[in-house]
């Protein structure tokens, strides 16, 4: 955690192994996933993160140009928001999140985080809720809070081999702020 007087960004930017790390990480999830994490997983969230909110803003030849739309928080947020706003019942993104939450619940059940009844409740909720509950939420995560928990995605995990992506397997509620941009 940060201590003492902070006079400029260079003093608060975390340094790990001599390398300056991001000030903030951004991640997008759905409201429903957020609520399920809070309710069933003791406020622990799985976050796929980027150190930049909108990679396109950095230019065609910038450091973040290789981050594809599927990993760019702004585009994930915007595209999902549009599909929810339209109430698109056949949205692949919404279906993907529905299946993703269920697959996540399978893991949590297997690892004993939830019991079978809770697993069933999650399945019932995920299959029954309205599309509006899949609206996007942006997680703003101060890097200093997660230095010990964050790792860089492996090349195989990334949407693009040169993309800069981070994973936090168990992000505590107290370590980020979720916001709705619209």
């Amino acid at each position: 955690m940060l201590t003492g007087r902070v006079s400029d960004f260079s003093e608060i930017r975390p340094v790990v192994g001599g390398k300056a790390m991001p000030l903030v990480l951004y991640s997008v999830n759905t409201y429903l996933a957020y609520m399920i994490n809070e309710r069933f997983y003791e406020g622990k969230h799985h976050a796929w993160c980027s150190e930049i909110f909108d990679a396109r803003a950095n230019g065609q030849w910038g450091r973040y140009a290789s981050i594809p739309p599927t990993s760019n928080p702004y585009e994930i947020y915007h595209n999902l928001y549009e599909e929810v706003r339209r109430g698109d019942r056949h949205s692949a993104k919404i279906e993907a999140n529905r299946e993703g939450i269920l697959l996540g619940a399978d893991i949590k059940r297997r690892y004993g985080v939830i019991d079978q009844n809770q697993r069933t409740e999650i399945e019932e909720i995920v299959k029954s809720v309205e599309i509006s509950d899949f609206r996007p939420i942006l997680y703003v995560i101060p890097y200093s809070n997660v230095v010990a928990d964050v790792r860089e995605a492996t090349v195989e995990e990334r949407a693009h081999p040169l993309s800069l992506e981070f994973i936090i397997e168990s992000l505590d509620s107290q370590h980020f702020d979720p916001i709705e941009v619209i």
Partner: protein
Amino acid sequence: MFEKWTKHLNHIDLRAVTYNIARRIRRKKPIYPLDPVPQTKSLPIPEELSKIVDEIQAEIEARYRTPIDQIDEETEYKILKEFSDLSYEKMKASPDYDPERVKKAVEAMNNMTLYHKSIRHTPIKLVDDERTGI
């Protein structure tokens, strides 16, 4: 489409099969940020279910004429949704299914006190809200 392999499974075993099919489909794919889990976690299953997964993989590869880990995204979700819907139907048909449970679970979520005060804590709504009166 996969009834031959799934009709005798209960919904819990069917979820285990679904998870392992998803993992095989995504083995060589990048992680999807909104659905990041299956590439990274292995969930071992009993040999009997593993054999079923093998047979379903062979069926998928024959049907789409492509290795399972090269199936496109649209087909992937069509397959996963089919398994998911099957397991949901089986769950609803099981003797211990309680139709009131989802209402209670949603009510509990809506009454939660969230750590984050800045988020719009809107009530989770069921598709058939009007009929259930939630």
